[in-house]
């Protein structure tokens, strides 16, 4: 299957960056992002009113607790770290036209691998090396996990949406089995892996609680963006994504590229898990599954697979989830409302993008 909505936008996004026009374009983007968010907030506000909650108070808390208080912004930035890695992985896959919907399984297995290895390694080697090795192990485990969908897609043409979805169901179970039966910390009654002590985790930034995973995530997603848009390798992947037959015609090794895409995408998802564990969580508990993947997918699409824009959307998601929880508690709305809010924001943003696109087209004509 070749769904080529993705590359459509990628090709046009590629065009959009040129010199002086860039600043105006960015301003325009910003406006086209904030405007819809405002509209979404109004719609969601009506729901709040309907259940008898003051929307202004609610949003006030969201902003304060998610963005403007020193504590809030730190939490928001910390939350971004794993999401950025996931987004980077999705950018690679989607630009190459492969629907890796198995991010959650890859994430969890990466997390388990990191949680299992880091506390052990740290006893034998310098801290930084141990963490580095744990990252590598997590990446490799996630890559191996993606091998089944990758091989099936590359050599049998089996659609990867099905296989990655299935592998995510399986991966979630396997992660549990590993935590409960293989890597279980014998010192606790609760099934979880050994805990990496706080002082051995990724350092925090300066005097804050922000994990340095954030910096790694930012660097990673920017590198991924540049590789996908500025290098021969990235272009090859995009050709495979946009028109696989053209890729064959142009002499590209589509099977090898397909496997590479899965490996990179899954590896980054695994890294996301590792960064969350080594940066923040310290261990993996049985039945733990934050299911970040599901919310990151739309964010990556809205960003048109552009790494920089993805950073913005991941930031937005983090603000909403951190601030939303706080606001819900303070006003006695169930936390589930955050889901509704995120959903409305996503839909209105998608609509706005469409309207914007239409407007541009009619203006150009």
């Amino acid at each position, binding site marked *: 299957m070749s769904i080529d909505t993705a590359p459509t936008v990628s090709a046009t996004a590629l065009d959009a960056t040129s010199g002086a026009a860039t600043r105006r374009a960015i301003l325009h983007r910003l406006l086209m992002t904030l405007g819809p968010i405002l509209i979404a907030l109004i719609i969601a506000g009506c729901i709040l009113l309907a259940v008898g909650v003051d929307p202004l108070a609610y949003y006030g808390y969201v902003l304060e607790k998610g963005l403007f208080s020193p504590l809030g912004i730190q939490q928001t930035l910390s939350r971004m770290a794993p999401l950025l890695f996931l987004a980077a992985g999705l950018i690679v896959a989607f630009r190459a036209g492969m629907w890796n919907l198995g991010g959650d399984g890859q994430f969890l297995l990466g997390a388990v691998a990191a949680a299992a290895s880091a506390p052990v390694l740290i006893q034998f080697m310098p801290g930084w090396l141990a963490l580095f090795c744990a990252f590598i192990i997590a990446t490799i485990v996630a890559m191996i996990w993606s091998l089944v969908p990758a091989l099936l897609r590359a050599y049998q043409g089996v659609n990867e949406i099905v296989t990655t979805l299935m592998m995510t169901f399986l991966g979630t179970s396997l992660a549990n089995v590993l935590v409960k039966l293989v890597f279980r910390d014998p010192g606790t009654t609760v099934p979880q892996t050994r805990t990496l002590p706080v002082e051995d985790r990724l350092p925090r930034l300066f005097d804050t609680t922000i994990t340095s995973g954030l910096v790694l995530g930012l660097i990673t997603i920017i590198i991924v963006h540049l590789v996908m848009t500025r*290098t021969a*390798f990235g272009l090859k992947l995009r050709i495979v994504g946009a028109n696989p037959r053209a890729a064959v*015609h*142009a*002499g590209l090794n589509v099977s090898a590229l397909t496997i590479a895409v899965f490996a990179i995408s899954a590896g980054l998802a695994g890294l996301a898990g590792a960064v969350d564990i080594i940066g923040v969580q310290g261990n993996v508990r049985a039945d733990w599954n934050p299911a970040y993947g599901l919310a990151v997918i739309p964010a990556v699409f809205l960003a048109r697979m552009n790494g920089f824009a993805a950073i913005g959307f991941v930031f937005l998601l983090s603000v909403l989830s951190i601030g939303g929880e706080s606001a819900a508690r303070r006003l006695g709305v169930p936390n589930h409302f955050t889901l509704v809010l995120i959903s409305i924001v996503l839909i209105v943003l998608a609509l706005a993008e469409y309207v914007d696109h239409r407007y541009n087209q009619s203006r150009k004509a």
Partner: protein
Amino acid sequence: MSGSASSPVDKRDIVTLESVTKRFPGIVANDDIDLSIRPGEVHVLLGENGAGKSTLIGMLSGLQQPDEGRILVDGKPTQITSPRNALALGIGTVFQHMMLVPTLTVAENLLLGGPWWQTPKTEELAARVAEITSSLGITLKLSAKVSELSLGEQQQVEILRAMLRNSRLLILDESTSMLTPKGIDELGALMRRLVGQGLAVVFITHKLKEAVAFGDRISVLKLGKKVGEIPPERLRSLGEQEIIAEIVELMFGTQGADPEAATHPDHTASFAGAAPLLQVKDLAVAQTENAPGLSSISFDIRPGEILGIAGIDGNGQKQLAEALAGQRAVAGGSIWVDRTAIETLSVGARREIGLRYLTDDRLGEGTVGTFPVSINFFLKQVGAAPFWRNGVEQRGEIDARAAQLAREYDVRTPSLKTPVGRLSGGNIQKVLLARELAEGAKVVIFNKPTYGLDLANTLASRQRIRDTAARGLAVLLISTDLEELLSMCDRIAVIADGALVGTVDNVDDARTKVGRLMIGLAA
């Protein structure tokens, strides 16, 4: 310039266009066009690639709405809002690009459009099809999957479909491009019969001879504007050569006799004695679900030589080209390029050695439609210096070279950043030509290189192919256009059912010999 000053509305018109304008991002595809379409007339639309012909009929068939101006049907201003609406008005169209569902059978494709709750009425259809095909002189297997048909056969299905609709106005957008000379003549005769019955026909072609032979009225478009019209009276009063001269004048502003009637120069002499650059021996390809196989194909091409492959479309031409280029698995036999055996090499490796393949499927595999024109020039060189250094894209180099190629090959595009898929077919083809001929080539396979090109581009492309050979390259030219082969090749081989049935030197009586081979007689 033409009769656009006086209002063209005429009581006899089925469809009239009044000052119709259609814009696309960055381009005015149709600019203030007046046109009248009358029953009993074959109205030929001529124009370069991208002149706006397909856009014009897009508006007639309900795919697009005019930005300005209006369309009158039977004298009444009418908005043709959808293809369904157009069909209801009696306007049937055979589109330039294939409009069949590949996974459905011929019959199912023909039945598409019936009331949703019904069971498809296959028997009824078979009877009607039999009626029409016999008068058309074609045979079609209704139960065949469309994906198994050759492009030519698919075009026949589309013509048949338009006929089944009992249209009052039949539009044929480059419908002869995939037909054999015989097929073209038959279609021409059919058009004559239809207008004889009082239908109107709009016929788009790039072949001036067809225009003159079948047309009653000729309109010429250029850069979206209508630059002239030759009414029936005048058409009848002039001889073929005079008309062609007039059309060429309208289209290109130059005067000349029949521009297609060039004979091939012989430049093999300068490479006499050189070893063959391309050698193919006993090449075989297995048959697949939807493509014929190849069996024991052997031929040589020396430097400077152009070998033509003639044959009715769908007889293995594409498989041959793909097997040579490395896109299709070979079941047996060997291929040498410049004495290197290549049959086990990958597509990329064969290209390294100097083999070039210009595909006939520009949109499907030749280009990435959503990518900018500039990148499409380098699709087969991704990673190569100087456009990439250490794997990093050199935008400056790419843009500069792309601009140069666009100029050299006269690619008309709003900008180098325009997605290539938005260009007209002819301009896309120029991008492909530029890409394949650029540098390092030894052997070039051209598969239908001028399909869909306008006259000027056709001539330019042919000249490029001749120049290619003159530089000492070996050229394999696959075409369904016999005239083209005769005007270019040194030798012509005929392919039928996946085998080469004979090779003819392109001398005086080549036309008859090739013709005999094609219809299954000995040369």
